[in-house]
């Protein structure tokens, strides 16, 4: 009998081993071997609560295994494998170590049954993933990474504060469904939704993911937001606020994506949009909506990874990341396989039957219909239109086809990406189609029994109408939709500009104030230093100064008669300044100290005489 171990340990082990392997082939073997072992390990994990460790009087639970955590566990391990295949050609060990720690801590969050271990893994997740951004090693990535980690540390601190208040109030650290309403639960929710990139706390995602390394961004798309969806499903199912936030977020991401020029940033905005469906499903709270959220998270991880792999491959071979630089270069002739695989991801995210988005997205939308939520239903439909428009029409048209004016017409070097990238994309594409054609495989994993059939004639006809007419509108508007070489400001404007103005405030007004204060004090300090050179001259100096100023004031009255007097005082003052302290001049028969002692002694005697008599 094989005894399973917590999956987080497997990946931490991998992170530790990778840097010590000398042979490249062996290293590559371990990179894909560990996710495979982790998958087998998952298969042997029975449902229940185990791996309980005592810690300062509380119980840490590393194995809370039920259908919900297993479903997320499976897809996290699958994407770990696919992402590692995609990253096989990368020679920097640090990237793989960071990725393994990131995957491991996400699995730690997924199977954590208590809030303490959840928090620890939550922070490790943020701290390890930031290296996938920093390994890009340019200035923009460094800055974006710092903003990323600061936001996540802020979210983590809110979460910790919430957890401490919660534990102090209830005395339990079990991570059970939380009752939304009190302060502790609001803080915890805020910590969770920062990781889920819910507006207005979403800007870290669209800011940092496009700056990450090509292989690192594939991991980034999968874990942080989806683990946040998982903890929301676990803790805050049915919170009305989330239904609205989710629906708004789905449209918000779409609108920004239409304006976007950077291909990975466009896709990052569509992560926000797609996570909106999941958050909305959490908020709706019915069994069907929760199933829909889980299924959509599963499918989203697959197709979004595929989309990022495709966009990453284009950036890898051309070095260009903007549509304005890529359009009109006829890349479709040079990388047709990459384009076809990308399109499978694009059809999946747009919920074209029979790709996997169709079987999961429609579930959330149908749940909104079943609960009679017309506005949410319409918003989610609108987001579907925008998704198809940006991801399946605008981005591939601009990247692989497109037109460009004659004077800008130059060829760029391009070919198909390395084999390992294509294999990873192929396998991901296969899974996208497989779960689409055979949804039962996924539906059996979902937390509640599924009574939903996506493949009815009505759904297929309605979806195809929606998508084809969107394509028709795109065709009409094709010149208007064309992207411009601009960036769009988002809510990160507040802290990026605020940061800039804070440094300006420090370096200009505050610095001037400091100089002024310093100057003012320098005069005083000089004076005191001068006087301290010989304190005995202080009375004389004061007196001569007084005389000098009086003569100056009286000058207009008496005129030239005082000139000599003034000169004399000035001479006296300069000679006084020149006069250093010479102890022999001030020597007295008895030292000053002894005189003071004698006087006080005398006073004491007199006072005592008085009281005695």
């Amino acid at each position, binding site marked *: 009998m094989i005894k399973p171990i917590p999956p987080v340990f497997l990946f931490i082990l991998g992170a530790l081993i990778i840097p010590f392997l000398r042979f490249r082939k062996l290293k590559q073997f371990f990179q894909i071997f560990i996710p495979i072992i982790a998958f087998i390990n998952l298969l042997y994990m029975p449902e229940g609560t185990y791996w309980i460790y005592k810690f300062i009087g509380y119980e840490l639970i590393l194995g809370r295994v039920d259908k919900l955590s297993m479903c997320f566990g499976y897809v996290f391990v699958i994407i770990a494998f696919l992402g590692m295949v995609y990253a096989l050609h990368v020679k920097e060990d640090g990237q793989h170590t960071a990725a393994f720690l990131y995957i491991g801590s996400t699995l730690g969050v997924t199977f954590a049954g208590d809030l303490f271990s959840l928090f620890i893994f939550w922070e490790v997740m943020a701290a390890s993933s930031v290296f996938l951004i920093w390994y890009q090693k340019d200035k923009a990535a460094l800055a974006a990474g710092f903003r990323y980690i600061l936001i996540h540390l802020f979210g983590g601190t809110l979460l910790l504060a919430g957890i401490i208040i919660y534990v102090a109030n209830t005395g339990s650290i079990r991570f059970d469904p939380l009752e939304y309403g009190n302060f502790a639960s609001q803080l915890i929710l805020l910590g969770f939704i920062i990781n889920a990139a819910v507006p207005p706390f979403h800007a870290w995602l669209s800011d940092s993911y496009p700056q990450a390394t090509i292989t690192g961004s594939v991991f980034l798309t999968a874990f942080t937001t989806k683990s946040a969806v998982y903890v929301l499903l676990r803790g805050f199912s049915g919170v009305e606020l989330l239904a609205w936030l989710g629906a708004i977020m789905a449209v918000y991401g779409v*609108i920004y994506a239409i*304006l976007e020029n950077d291909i990975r940033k466009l896709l990052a905005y569509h992560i926000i949009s797609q996570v909106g469906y999941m958050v909305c499903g959490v908020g709706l709270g019915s069994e069907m909506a929760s199933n829909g959220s889980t299924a959509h998270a599963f499918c989203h991880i697959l197709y979004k990874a595929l989309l990022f792999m495709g966009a990453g491959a284009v950036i890898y071979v051309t070095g260009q990341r903007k549509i304005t630089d890529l359009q009109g270069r006829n890349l479709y002739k040079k990388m047709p396989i990459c384009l076809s695989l990308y399109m499978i991801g694009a059809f999946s995210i747009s919920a074209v039957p029979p790709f996997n988005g169709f079987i999961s997205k429609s579930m959330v939308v149908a749940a909104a219909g079943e609960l009679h939520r017309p506005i949410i239903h319409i918003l989610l439909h609108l987001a579907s*239109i925008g998704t198809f*428009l940006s991801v399946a029409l605008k981005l591939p048209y601009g990247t692989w086809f497109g037109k460009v004016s004659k004077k800008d017409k130059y060829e760029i070097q391009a070919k198909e990406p390395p084999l390992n990238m294509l294999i990873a994309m192929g396998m991901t594409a296969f899974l996208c189609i497989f779960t689409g054609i055979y949804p039962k495989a996924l539906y059996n994993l979902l937390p509640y029994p599924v009574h939903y059939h996506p493949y009815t004639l009505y759904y297929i006809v309605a979806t195809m*109408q929606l998508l*084809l007419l969107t394509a028709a509108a795109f065709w009409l508007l094709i010149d208007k939709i064309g992207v411009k070489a601009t960036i769009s*400001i988002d809510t990160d404007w507040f802290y990026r500009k605020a940061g800039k103005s804070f440094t300006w405030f420090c370096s200009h007004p505050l610095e001037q104030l400091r100089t002024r204060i310093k100057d003012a004090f320098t005069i005083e300090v000089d004076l005191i230093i001068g006087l301290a050179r010989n304190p005995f001259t202080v009375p004389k100096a004061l007196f001569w100064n007084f005389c000098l100023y009086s003569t100056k004031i009286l000058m207009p009255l008496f005129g030239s008669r005082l000139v000599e007097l003034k000169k004399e005082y000035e001479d006296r003052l300069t000679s006084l300044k020149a006069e250093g302290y010479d102890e022999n001049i001030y020597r007295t028969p008895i030292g000053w100290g002894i005189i003071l002692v004698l006087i006080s002694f005398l006073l004491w005697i007199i006072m005592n005489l008085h009281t005695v008599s």
Partner: protein
Amino acid sequence: MLKILKYLFFTSIGILVLLGFFVVPEHPHFFWEKIPAFDAIFGFLGCIVIVLIAKSLGHYLLEKDEDYYD
């Protein structure tokens, strides 16, 4: 090639819209689900509306030069 695609595209739209008159949902939740070919209308107008909203927001408020933050 492109011409064939065009014909294919328009005929499939035609067929789908026609089908929309005959295929109705089993349990309609909202009144608009009973309108024939509603999704086709919604897709076409929705696309135009969303592009207009995005582009005007971008033009008047959001779009800045690429070195805006530098």
